[in-house]
């Protein structure tokens, strides 16, 4: 039995209310989807059109679906944390300490790795190739593999509901020695490690893929300094992915070696050193923050330029900012542990480096405001998100500069002030950016616009909920409240502010409902909100030159780029009219596109098994998973028919349909 099932026993199956609830809801949801697909006979359609697709646009949408589901999952965790902290004055509360600690660990891990990362990789997949005038990413198979590794990781982190019933109770970075076998003997930390290993591998491969795409697949004439700002910031972000995710992989590998094979990399005794882990994890962890932030900066740049109908002010500065931020972000990791006893010189160096990041960030904000000042701004709901960002991000940035000064960090570290700070940055910076991006690019993806009225309502609810939720945490931080408390003495008088924070959480929930309603209303009214031109906002970059949604090959004729803001340039110089009136019609060529492939799914499934085998110490399953994954790669390498051709006549047919619509619109 031990050979076949490792540590897995009957006792590992769900038997507590939250594991039973989690497992049951997942089974029911899965069953519902299964029945629906079988009933409507959509399995084949799903498999062929979506799951095995190599089209980065479809992969991008799938990223969004998974990330949205995980947002709900992480949001539920947030709600449970809030409820516990509101009730837990005295020794109250409805959760045990251990369970509470598992919840905030899961909340942090999910929100960073599976929500923000998922949304941003989805966006990059969809928008990057369109913005640089490419038909696909550099390595289509690698792209599906990256997505499926991410999806497998997302599933893996929820697997503990079914087997084991416990997640890591260590905080989202699982600092040893707490995360070592001695103090966390259960499988929780192993689930944490392997869900990150699987999805982290996906992130790394995606990083390589998109980086090569940007560097090698730009349309002719698009020099680096003619790239849209979003592409630049993604470049900065992807450079960080490629250079820091290997650190994460190796650090987690060492931790899992400690746990599975009794090694001593990070233990307190026998020559191990936990401080090594703290350094390693943060030298990935801090760049990770900017991996999430940089693309958001790019989104704001695009939106500001488009909605003020003006070239970005200080483009050169903004490019320098993106590169400076990505460079500096690798030199500041020690500011996460000024309190670990480094000398004053070391602390001061890293403190000053941290402060330096505020310079390019500040310059960016000034330049965006200058663009708006010079331009003719339209305050659409996307711009609302931008202004919300300027407000929250400046506040959070100020808190960040404070935390970057060691003398202040000694007092603020590990307090709720810190918690409030990074939530301000991730919500006010990255998440608002994602919402802005959704509003902005939604018509490109679906062919109709989102309802503006509900968009604005959702924004105001979000900003209110956000402030009500996190201002109390700043105040609590100044009261000296540490983070991650599952209960506290009633006499301390913290409960009121925790309850106010909870009120904010409820407002945020209402805001999310408003967003869902916005999408429903928009789908209902899609006829009125239809966008046939492909360019609803009077855009400046190449993605707006295609139809909405773009054809599978993105561009029938790869455009020649003469200037920055390529599409705006075409519109001004009259090239678009020429295209539309059919003069450029006859130059279509055959287009070679990658075929669908399920190899990515198979490899991810096998690696999923490897992770499961490591968690439960099932040797044969690990071997099967590993050999299976390698075999898939070998088999695939003998498959020479991975591409298909779209004939030029077909391209012409598809294009004339699209162009005719644009033509009619122009009349």
């Amino acid at each position, binding site marked *: 039995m031990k050979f076949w099932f490792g540590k897995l026993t009957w006792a590992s199956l769900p038997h507590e209310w939250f594991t039973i609830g989690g497992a049951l809801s997942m089974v029911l949801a899965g069953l519902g989807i299964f029945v629906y697909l079988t009933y409507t006979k959509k399995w084949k359609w799903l498999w062929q059109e979506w799951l095995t697709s190599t089209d980065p646009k479809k992969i991008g949408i799938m990223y969004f679906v998974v990330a949205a589901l995980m947002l709900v999952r992480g949001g539920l965790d947030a709600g449970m944390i809030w409820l516990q902290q509101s009730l837990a004055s005295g020794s109250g509360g409805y959760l045990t300490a251990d369970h509470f600690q598992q919840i905030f660990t899961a909340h942090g891990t999910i929100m960073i790795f599976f929500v923000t990362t998922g949304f941003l990789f989805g966006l990059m997949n969809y928008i990057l190739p369109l913005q640089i005038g490419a038909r696909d990413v550099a390595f289509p198979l690698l792209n599906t593999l990256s997505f499926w590794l991410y999806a497998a990781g997302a599933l893996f982190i929820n697997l503990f509901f079914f087997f084991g019933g416990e997640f890591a109770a260590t905080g989202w970075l699982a600092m040893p020695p707490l995360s070592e076998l001695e103090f966390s003997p259960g499988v929780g930390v192993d689930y944490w490690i392997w869900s990150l290993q699987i999805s982290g591998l996906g992130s790394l491969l995606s990083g390589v893929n998109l980086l090569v795409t940007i560097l090698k697949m730009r349309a002719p004439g698009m020099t680096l300094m003619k790239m849209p700002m979003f592409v630049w910031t993604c470049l900065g972000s992807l450079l960080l992915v490629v250079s820091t995710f290997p650190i994460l992989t190796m650090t987690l590998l060492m931790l899992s070696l400690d746990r599975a094979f009794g090694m001593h990399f990070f233990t307190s005794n026998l020559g191990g050193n*936990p401080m090594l882990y703290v350094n390693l994890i943060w030298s990935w962890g801090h760049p990770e923050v900017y991996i999430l932030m940089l693309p958001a900066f790019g989104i704001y740049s695009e939106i500001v330029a488009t909605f003020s109908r003006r070239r970005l002010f200080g483009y050169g500065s903004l490019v320098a900012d993106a590169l400076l931020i990505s460079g500096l972000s690798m030199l500041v990791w020690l500011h996460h542990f000024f309190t670990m006893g480094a000398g004053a010189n070391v602390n001061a160096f890293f403190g000053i480096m941290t402060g330096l990041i*505020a310079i390019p960030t500040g310059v960016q904000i000034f330049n965006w405001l200058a663009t708006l000042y010079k331009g003719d701004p339209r305050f659409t709901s996307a711009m609302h998100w931008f202004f919300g960002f300027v407000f929250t991000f400046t506040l959070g940035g100020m808190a960040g500069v404070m935390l970057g000064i060691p003398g202040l960090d000694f007092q*603020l*570290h590990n307090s709720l002030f810190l918690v409030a700070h990074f939530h301000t940055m991730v919500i006010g910076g990255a998440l608002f950016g994602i919402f802005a991006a959704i509003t902005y690019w939604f018509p490109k993806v679906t062919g109709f616009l989102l309802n503006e009225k509900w968009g604005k309502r959702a924004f105001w609810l979000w900003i209110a909920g956000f402030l009500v939720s996190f201002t109390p945490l700043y105040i609590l931080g100044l009261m000296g409240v*540490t983070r991650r408390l599952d209960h506290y003495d009633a006499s301390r008088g913290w409960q009121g502010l925790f309850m106010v924070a909870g009120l904010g959480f409820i407002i945020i929930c209402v805001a999310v409902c408003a967003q869902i309603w916005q999408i429903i209303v928009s789908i209902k009214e899609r006829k009125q909100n239809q966008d046939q031109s492909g360019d609803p906002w009077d855009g400046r970059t190449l993605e707006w030159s295609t139809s909405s949604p773009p054809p599978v090959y993105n561009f029938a004729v790869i455009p020649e780029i003469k200037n920055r803001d390529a599409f705006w340039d075409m519109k001004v110089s009259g090239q678009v009219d020429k295209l539309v009136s059919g003069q450029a019609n006859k130059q279509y060529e055959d287009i070679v596109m990658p075929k669908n492939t399920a190899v990515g799914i198979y490899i991810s499934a096998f690696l999923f098994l490897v992770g499961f085998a490591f968690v439960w110490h099932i040797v044969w399953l690990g071997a099967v998973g590993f050999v299976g994954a390698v075999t898939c790669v070998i088999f695939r390498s003998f498959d020479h028919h991975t591409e298909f051709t779209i004939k030029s006549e077909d391209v012409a047919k598809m294009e004339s349909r699209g162009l005719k619509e644009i033509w009619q619109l122009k009349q």
Partner: protein
Amino acid sequence: MSKKQKIIILYLVVIDVFLLGLALWFFVWPKIRLVNFALLQPAGEVAIKEYMLFKLVLFLMLVVAIPLFCFAVFILKRRKHEKISLFEKNKSHEGLWQIFVWLVPVILIFSISVINWKSTHDLDPYKPLSLKKEPIVIQVVALNWKWLFIYPNERIATINFLQVPEQTPIEFNLTADAPMNSFWIPRLGGQMYSMAGMTTKLHLQADQKGDFEGFAAEINGRGFADMNFVLHSVSETDYGNWLKNVKSKSLKLTLKEYERLSEEEKKHEPEVFSFVEDSLYEKIMEKFMPDGGYMPGMPSHNVDSLDNNNPSFSY
């Protein structure tokens, strides 16, 4: 939406806001009023300096942030016909603006960097506070889930509470016999990690009499939230009396008793020991060293040698 509907909605919103305000007033406000703002009410030399630094940095940043917010609001409020085209005609203005936008943050961050460098050296937790007065040495051991304090010179020990004379520097030597932790007394000054097999240092001082709460600030397992203690700051004479009082009892912390204590994993009430095993602190650290010897990359277990070369590890 008809006018009637709008009025009804308006009424509902007003009533909701009113009820919400009432609820906040009754339930939330009384609970906030009782609170002390630990970081804004410093009671020790270090905490006072850190509070001054907090105010200074906040002020400097607001100098830049407030005009920035005003500019943003101005753009939002500006109507199109009021648009002033400062840059439109001459392209060189973009260069001027760029110099301006780089210069402002550079000056701000430069000044903060100077403050940063100076304050970091000034507030270095390893630096003794005063050379005039001999500090009280207290050895701190973070256990699961309680704080053990050893007064090596007085040869007594306490659990989850501290008694110190006011206006006397305290030298904390910190280690752990459990997962990594962080030792924090907000009203006296910043925190410091305590880690198994090594010593970190923290110098604090209580300037006034009073009870100051201390916390474990780094997650370390199930009992994390209960790992609190109180530091009683009393007058010199009261401290002397307390010492005598403790010494008169016969509660011994032998190595065996310590082992029992460190394995007991539950919330612990404050406790006093009138006698402590010889160099218990050093013995606790030695547990984590191979054969009690020295390993490269690991600290020497001799605490005294750390005084010259402050950190217990080197970068």
